């Protein structure tokens, strides 16, 4: 399946992907209005070292530990292999947060967890982090 991959050679650590992700989640037409004075909860996060930067988001593992660990069936895999979350079913037990080996599932302010769903549910059509990356460091491809 097509996944979001990061070529760390080209990642500048600008963190634009985090803001594009958070913006895509809001469904608003204007980023300034959508994110002004808000704390963002992006589903992609840039890890910064001294000379190395790379963005990390859900790997959509074939054997997804988060799906296996979910006690309510809120996390599931679509036929295409995308790990999705039904936030209405989430009971905030955070087992998935603990089991994800990549740290890619995080709680939100209202309790339910959030994770990358490859922008399936946003209005962007394709992953917003990929579209907005200024250096082609984030790609959406089959590997």
């Amino acid at each position, binding site marked *: 399946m097509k996944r979001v991959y990061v070529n760390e050679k080209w990642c500048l650590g600008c963190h634009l992907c985090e803001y594009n992700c958070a913006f895509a989640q809001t469904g608003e037409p204007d980023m300034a209005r959508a*994110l002004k004075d808000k704390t963002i909860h992006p589903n992609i996060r840039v890890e910064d070292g001294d000379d190395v930067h790379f963005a990390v988001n859900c790997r959509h593992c074939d054997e997804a530990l988060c799906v296996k660990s979910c006690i309510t069936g809120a996390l599931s895999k679509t036929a295409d292999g995308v790990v999705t979350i039904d936030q209405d079913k989430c009971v905030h037990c955070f087992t998935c947060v603990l089991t994800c080996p990549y740290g890619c599932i995080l709680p939100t302010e209202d309790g339910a967890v959030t994770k990358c769903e490859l922008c399936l549910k946003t209005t962007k059509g394709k992953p917003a982090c990929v579209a907005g990356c200024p250096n082609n460091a984030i790609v959406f491809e089959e590997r």
Partner: protein
Amino acid sequence: MGINYIVPEYRVVRDPDRCIGCRVCERQCANEVHSFVPQTGKMAADDAKCVNCHRCVSLCPTGALRIVKNEDTFKINANWSNKLMQEIYRQADSGGVLLSSMGNPEPYPIYFDKILLNASQVTNPSIDPLREPMETRTFLGAKTKKIQRDKDGKIIPNASPYLELKTPIMFSAMSYGSISYNAHESLARAATELGIYYNTGEGGLHDDFYQYGANTIVQVASGRFGVHADYLDTAAAIEIKMGQGAKPGIGGHLPGTKIVGDISRTRMIPEGSDAISPAPHHDIYSIEDLRQLVFSLKEATNYQKPVIVKIAAVHNVAAIASGIARSGADIIAIDGYRGGTGAAPTRIRDNVGIPIELALAAVDQRLRDEGIRDNVSIVVGGSCRCSTDVFKAIALGADACYIGTAALLALGCHLCRSCHAGKCNWGIATQRPDLVKRLNPDIGYKRLVNLVEAWTHEIKEMMGGMGINSIESLRGNRLMLRGVGLNEKELEILGIKHAGE
């Protein structure tokens, strides 16, 4: 110095309603203009450090930033401009020569903008390039003087070595050192895809780029950096650099701090040593000396490769070109006074040399008058800014154009003219690894290909409008040009008529 005499040239204006404090501007500015103030939770800017490269403006996701000319001014004086006053303050502070980068920005006349093109009406049909073939293929090198046949009547292939270009545009010389590895890779890959050539400049050829040799022109300049047998053998052509439009009569100086790692190896000089290109070639003091170097290089490459001699456009350029055309060189490259540079003394850049349009017209005419125009091809550079500049240059007599600044603009350059500071935020004129990686050659080469293809479409469109279907028919076709607002002398030198004539 206790007093700061320098007033910032530009101001950073941030729209507080649009700034979301993402700090992208802060992370992207190598000049450290932007900063986050924890006490207020807001971003701040230090205008004095801003070079107006627009990196922050381009990357700001909410369009919250603008860079504006600082309206703060000294008392207006038509003789003593603010710029001159600041330069005096700067020199009084430093005691040094003023340095600048990229081409001459001063308001001298631009002759390309005072030349208009012809088109067909009624009596001669124009051609639609989308329906009919249009030839932009160009050959550079000495023209065959006489067709020779063997005893069976077959043509003896006695053509001089030549370059074949799909379109009459090449990337001018920019050394590895003055521009980054990724900028070089972008140029090399674009030239290969476009079927044209890029030029190494005087920095040698990085090992990784030998694979693009068939589309590479290698330079031999006064410092001879990076020149060795493989370097010459790999290339499609060899260029002897006598001068550069941005700084005629001046050599080059890449400071030792930039001679590190790959650059030191590619230039074949020790790490940390200054790379000084002398002003003259110490073995060339006459056309006869130049001829010796031309033939040394031809001998070294078994007479398989054309040799280019590049000169800056100076006052007696026509006489110099006449000499070069007799020196055995195959191609003359002329660089006008608006040509770019990675660093040059400001006074030299802004005051030395002549416009490329006049130099080109004078050289082409002189070589025709002397019957030696076919000895050489002429390539011009020094601010070919768009397809019409290329088109007009060809009609004035050029065989092809070198583009340097336009190519860098395609890669992201915003002409902030701070290359000499080595902190290019666009990853072009820098060797800092964190900045170099900002230019992804996968994106860069594609943008260069797009640019040259777009220009080629426009050139075909203009040729079609004139009823011309081959670039050969445009070359030196000055009847297709008319001047506007030019005096008799200018028209005479350009060899064109005034509009209405």
